[in-house]
């Protein structure tokens, strides 16, 4: 009884790996040789078909390269724009960081503020608003006159 090639052996031969025993067997076994040839023919047919279907004229490849170049350029422009924005933001942040602090109020300004505050407080404490002071004096004078006239 002849032992034919196992699937592993046939596979190894197809992958062009060195298997001396399998090669010797193929020389003496027409059945296995036919098996191998049939599998090889089927796979070759598949490969030929795949290559044939993927064949394209030179214009196709050229157009694809042009489109790719455009996309790559667009990519670069976008990246440049992004970097520019980042750089502008960094510059703005830096400027804000190193800008001299706002000037502190001087002692003269502080005194003036205090004086104003005191004046406002005084004005609030008065019974009569400052705008009505002349009227208050007039009323006081009239009152004094009436008082002196009534005196015997």
């Amino acid at each position: 009884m002849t032992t034919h090639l196992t699937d592993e052996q046939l596979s190894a031969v197809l992958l062009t790996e060195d298997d001396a025993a399998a090669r010797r067997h193929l020389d003496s076994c027409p059945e296995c040789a036919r098996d191998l040839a049939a599998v090889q023919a089927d796979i070759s047919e598949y490969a030929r078909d795949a290559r044939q279907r993927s064949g394209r004229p030179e214009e196709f490849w050229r157009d694809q390269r042009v489109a790719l170049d455009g996309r790559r350029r667009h990519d670069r422009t976008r990246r440049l724009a992004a970097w520019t924005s980042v750089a502008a933001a960094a510059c703005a942040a830096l400027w804000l960081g190193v800008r001299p602090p706002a000037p502190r109020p001087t002692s003269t300004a502080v005194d003036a503020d205090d004086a104003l505050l005191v004046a406002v407080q005084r004005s609030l404490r008065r019974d009569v608003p400052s705008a009505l002071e002349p009227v208050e004096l007039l009323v006081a004078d009239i009152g004094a006159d009436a008082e002196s006239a009534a005196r015997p």
Partner: protein
Amino acid sequence: VTRPVVVPARPLGFRTDMESAWDGDGFDALVRRNQPRLFRIIRSLVWDPDAAATLTQECFLRAYRGRADFRGAATLDTWLVSIALNIARDHLKSRRQSFWRRLVRGSDTAIDGEAAWPDPAPSPERTLAGREALARVFAVVEELSPQQREAFVLRFVEEMSLDEIAGALGVTEGTVKAHLHRATTAVRRRVKEAR
């Protein structure tokens, strides 16, 4: 007296191969060299030529954007293949999700009139035997897992070495062999059934 170690300065304008691959001419050469191959790989996996064209572009763009991530563990070409595989995988995933969403919404038609899986009809000039062979392999490929399918395409369509495939898939050579073994065994079974 110890002398200071003098590190040779990099000559002005000197650029490593890695850097020059991404500038104008270098990038153009990289695209020209890999364009047909990546398109073929993506097309063999997603089976939509328009989507494959867009995804091929996307692949180069993604590589360009992520050029800093390339550490040189694999070759630049293998790295591009691994990006192409990821993009194809994402596309298939979103297409499947979109298909199921449409199905749940009550429409069982495939996405945008496109078949969820390819029409394996070969060109008319193919012989009957050729067409049968193609149908057999398509049936097998359809049954493979995504990673097995990728290994199959890379090996038999692109004729990449096991080592390169392992690099592109991010797995060991042993795993690649196991994937390919599964595929070739299935083809062998189909061939026997057809006799």
